[in-house]
């Protein structure tokens, strides 16, 4: 049972190995805090939709399953969207259109179709958690690298904590702005992907 959990984090990491869910990974990883917010939102939607799909798998007709999955997923996405807007308005503003777009995140539909529909509730729950944490880990690492190099801070929270100054005060005046801009996102993920291939012995 436990291997379902680990699988999603390492061997079948959605972003680095399967290369799915790329849009939110790049778009909201401009800071570690934004990335973490997105990650938690995806963990919630993924686990809950896996749970419901798996629990209802015997009553969902085979040829209507995709639209039903989409409705289940969009329910949890809407909940996330409204809760985030109410309690974390700053974060909701930063993530913008990418919160409702969780609904077309291939990771979630992929796990519903590829795993939850065929497995028991506890297995589906662990699989959802594992894949969600695998996604969050990668997006958090990318967000941290981009924030540290591009702003000189780590874990700064808009309107709250001002963040750890990793390279000291002086760096804050001349950060590598490139890393926070879109090209930096592409560059960081390229190197992380190559690194994970090297480490897993694939190349």
């Amino acid at each position, binding site marked *: 049972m436990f291997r379902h959990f680990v699988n999603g984090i390492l061997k079948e990491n959605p972003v680095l190995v399967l*290369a*799915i869910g*790329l*849009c939110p990974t*790049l*778009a909201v990883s401009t800071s570690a805090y934004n990335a973490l917010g997105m990650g938690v939102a995806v963990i919630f939607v993924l686990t809950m939709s896996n749970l419901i799909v798996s629990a209802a798998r015997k009553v969902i007709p085979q040829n209507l399953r995709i*639209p039903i999955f*989409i*409705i289940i997923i*969009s*329910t949890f*996405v*809407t909940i996330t*969207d*409204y809760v985030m807007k109410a309690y974390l308005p700053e974060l909701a503003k930063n993530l*913008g*259109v990418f919160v*409702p*777009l969780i*609904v*077309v*995140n*291939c990771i979630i*539909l992929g796990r519903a179709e590829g795993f939850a529909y065929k497995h028991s509730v506890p297995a589906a729950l662990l699989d959802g958690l594992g894949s969600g944490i695998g996604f969050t880990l990668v997006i958090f690492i990318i967000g941290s690298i981009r924030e540290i190099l591009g702003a000189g801070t780590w874990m700064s929270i808009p309107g709250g904590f001002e963040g750890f100054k990793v390279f000291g005060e002086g760096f804050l005046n001349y950060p590598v702005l*490139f890393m926070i*801009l*879109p*090209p*930096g*996102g*592409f*560059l960081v*993920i*390229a*190197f992380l*992907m*190559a*690194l994970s*291939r*090297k480490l897993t012995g*694939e*190349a």
Partner: protein
Amino acid sequence: MDLFLLFLAAFLVNNIVLLRFLGLCPFFGVSSKLETAIGMSMAVIFVMTLSSIITWLLYNYILVPLHLVYLRTATFILVIASLVQFTELFLKKSAPALYKALGIFLPLITTNCAILGVAFLNIDYGHSIIQTIVYAIGVALGFMLALVLMAGIRERIEFAPIPKPFKGLPIAFILASLMALAFLGFVGLFGLSL
């Protein structure tokens, strides 16, 4: 003039793929050959324009008057999924030549987040119906520009001596990074910002 600026912003300055990070899956998935890249772009132009108009009408004339705005996410994705199916059936009957050209790319579009993203953005920006159409066409053409450029470059580097861990996707990401850097040069054109 305003419409032209809106078009230019959607097409170049805020290029949907390279600077807004929407539609990355098809961007990396079908950009290894020029021919498939053009097919995919055509399908996106067609579906994006149509779906933007329909979701805009649906939102402003059905969801808002009935106070059902919270159903936006669910209705938009279902409308787009069924629209793609209808388009497929309609083209098969009435325009077999176009159907053959778009063929396999149509079903793939349902999961293209750029389509749904543009539908949401039109609402969030408060566009009128004319602005919606112009914006959708601009975004779709911008998608085509990025995809075709990428496919052209990837065809050329196919036989280049790339370090082994970088073969395939990682080098494509580095190419995208360089392209995005080039596109950043359009920022400030006619005073348009990122």
